[in-house]
């Protein structure tokens, strides 16, 4: 393997990394801080704390995959890098959940879009949840610091045609659009962000904070599932963890006990509430797992006269916030418009169908273009979010009921996206909906979309952004942690991931997670230093 790869080089230099799938005996380990999760939140936390001289153990359920494994192959990537082998859905099966399960978490498979938390969202949090220190100008340095750490900057290369069509359509209709900032360095513009960056250009946790932490003597276990936080009196004493077997998903029976002074949970908006619920931690107001948000995603697909090749080129480079905040927080739901890459496996899985029709649709793939709407859930009373609870086997599941308010937004988003695609010259447009057909004019599409049934299992809804479930707030009756991610009821527990967001973000959340985790880790490091 090339020694230009930072992970291969680090492992060769003696990083303390344990593949728990290879453990044959139970063991107990100890550190100042145990960090559960290696995504945007866990990686940031581990790097900052380890640089302060604290001993850190990172725990990751997924495997350590890096450049040697990233061969631009969808099937391998979905099986190894995504939660439940890309089959994760909401409890009723109606919403597909795209989420990473590997070292680096979702930052290893995301499409690199790097937005600051919108001012409107920060101001809403300050007003509604009694949170101090979230004013946009106070948060700005934290965003700036993380933008530097992850090399985030607007993408200066011309967008691929898939993204440019969104720009063209917005221009034609007088809608606003902008260039997306991306966390890349020396990007080859190939389009394979979603299957693990093959060139190490993407600066997610895997290429930045994880190596940073390991260089500072952090230890990392991968293939190790955090099972339960065990309390002794009013503090967490240890984490009980289960090693995965050789397939990476079935427990081997080997357990690891991890003792620490402080525990940071960063296991995602589904994993973190799941761990807290399994651990039966104090939750006097029954808040854990509540107010879970997902940016429900709707999609339309267009057939263009020219080849789009939606599988090549930086997957996301143009967005429109034309519809995101125009109705404020009290009106109809807002949404951000973006573009997804379309590879054959993903396209064939996302568009449910069979037979000649499916074959004909996929046969047009090089000419297909798609727009997605990310609904800004959690701001309106009729968008209270979903609930994470435990299945019989202790694994977490998200129940996310779609309300009429959300369905209205889904229908309106189909209309706006179809109009934009026709304005950009689409020959035909179809909503990703079980009852939708191709339409060759905006007028015809509009009439048909207005008749589509807005029901679970008919409209195809997706989420790539899981947020909430351990919401922050000043009032312990309404939240799980305070504005610094500190648990309201357990002194040596913090939560540093997207689960603490009290609403959705209204933009791709990775920078929001990085920035909040950095801010809260700097504070945690000070507190832990003061004690010792």
């Amino acid at each position, binding site marked *: 393997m090339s020694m230009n790869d930072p992970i291969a080089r680090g492992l060769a230099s003696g990083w303390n990394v344990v593949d728990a799938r290879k453990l044959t005996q139970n063991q107990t380990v100890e550190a100042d801080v145990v960090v559960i999760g290696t995504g945007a939140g866990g990686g940031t936390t581990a790097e900052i704390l380890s640089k302060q001289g604290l001993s850190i153990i990172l725990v990751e359920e997924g495997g350590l995959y890096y*450049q040697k494994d990233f061969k631009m192959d*969808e*099937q391998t990537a979905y099986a190894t890098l995504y939660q439940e*082998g*890309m089959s994760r859905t909401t409890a009723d099966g109606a919403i597909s959940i795209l989420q990473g399960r590997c070292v680096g978490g979702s930052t290893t498979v995301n499409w690199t879009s790097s937005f600051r938390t919108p001012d409107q969202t920060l101001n809403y949090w300050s007003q509604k949840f009694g949170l101090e220190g979230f004013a946009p100008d106070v948060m700005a340095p934290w965003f700036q610091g993380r933008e530097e750490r992850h090399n985030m900057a607007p993408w200066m290369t011309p967008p691929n045609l898939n993204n440019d069509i969104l720009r063209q359509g917005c221009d034609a209709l007088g809608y606003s659009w902008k260039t997306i900032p991306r966390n890349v360095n020396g990007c080859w513009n190939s389009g394979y962000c979603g299957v693990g960056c093959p060139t190490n250009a993407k600066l997610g946790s895997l290429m930045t904070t994880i190596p940073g932490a390991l260089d500072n003597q952090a230890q990392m276990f991968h293939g190790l599932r955090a099972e339960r936080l065990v309390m002794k009196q009013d503090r967490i004493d240890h984490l009980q963890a289960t090693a995965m077997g050789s397939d990476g998903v079935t427990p081997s029976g080997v357990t690891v006990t991890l003792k620490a002074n402080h525990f940071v949970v960063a296991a995602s908006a589904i994993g973190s509430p799941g761990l807290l619920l399994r651990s039966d931690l104090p939750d006097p107001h029954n808040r854990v797992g509540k107010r879970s948000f997902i940016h429900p995603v709707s999609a339309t697909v267009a057939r263009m006269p020219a080849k789009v090749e939606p599988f090549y080129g930086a997957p996301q480079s143009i967005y429109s916030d034309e519809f995101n905040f125009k109705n404020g927080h009290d009106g109809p739901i807002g949404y951000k418009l973006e573009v997804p890459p379309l590879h054959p496996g993903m396209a064939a899985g996302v568009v449910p*169908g069979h037979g000649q029709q499916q074959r004909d649709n996929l046969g047009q793939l090089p000419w297909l273009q798609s727009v997605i709407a990310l609904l800004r859930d959690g701001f309106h009373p009729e968008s209270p979010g979903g609930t994470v609870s435990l299945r019989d086997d202790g694994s977490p*599941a998200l129940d996310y009921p779609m309300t009429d308010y959300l369905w209205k937004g889904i229908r309106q988003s189909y209309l706006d996206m179809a109009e934009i695609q026709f304005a950009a010259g689409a020959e035909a447009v179809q909503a990703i909906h*079980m009852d939708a057909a191709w339409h060759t004019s905006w007028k015809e599409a509009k009439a048909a979309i207005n008749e589509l049934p807005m029901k679970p*299992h008919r409209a195809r809804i997706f989420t790539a952004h899981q947020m909430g479930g351990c919401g922050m707030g000043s009032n312990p009756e309404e939240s799980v942690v305070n504005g610094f991610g500190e648990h309201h009821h357990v002194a040596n527990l913090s939560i540093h991931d997207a689960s603490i967001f009290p609403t959705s973000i209204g933009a791709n959340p990775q920078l929001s997670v990085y920035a909040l985790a950095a801010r809260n880790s700097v504070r945690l490091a000070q507190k832990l230093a003061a004690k010792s």
Partner: protein
Amino acid sequence: MLDQPTHSAENTPQLSRRSFLKTGVGGALFLGTVSMTAGLSGCATAPAGRISAVDSRMDAGYQFKFLSKDDIALFEALLPAMFVGALPEDPSERQFEMAATIERIDQGIVQFGAPNQKELRKLFDLLNFAPTRILLARVWSDWPSVTTKEADAFLNRWRDSSIGLLNNGYIALTKISNVAFYGHENQWHLSGYPGPPVWMMDALPQFKNA
């Protein structure tokens, strides 16, 4: 994806059954019962393991970890309908692609993990257990005797059903099959996907000595 959405409810007499299935909990309990009954009644619910080449026309080297012999028969009946116009015409090539797709479905499901495997076990048992196959799928013969036309009609019924649980079953069956089939290199030509850029594979270290 539909030209003319139809609703099977019109020709489904058992209204009480419909309302029963509409509730997620009722549906889940019902599937749970089927799974247990299927196991007790001798349906092949155990992983098929290594199947002899003669027996199944599969690659004898592959060890099935999740799919049972009955599940394999189910997919052998469904795939010709799912991939009509997409599977090769040549009988031996066709058989190879079918077998390879079913193996990839098995590999994929292993990575789904225990909770989703449990859900799929219920779905497959429901489709393999004659009483529920007839009642819910309205497929009268066992899968090895089902024609491509009948398999297509079954898929259409579940796709167009007004019962969310059956739509969900359709989506599960087609999604795992579509990803396993169209996502594989051998089928990329069907979607006009040229594959990863050759210049990248030539330049990147992970493709050396592969």
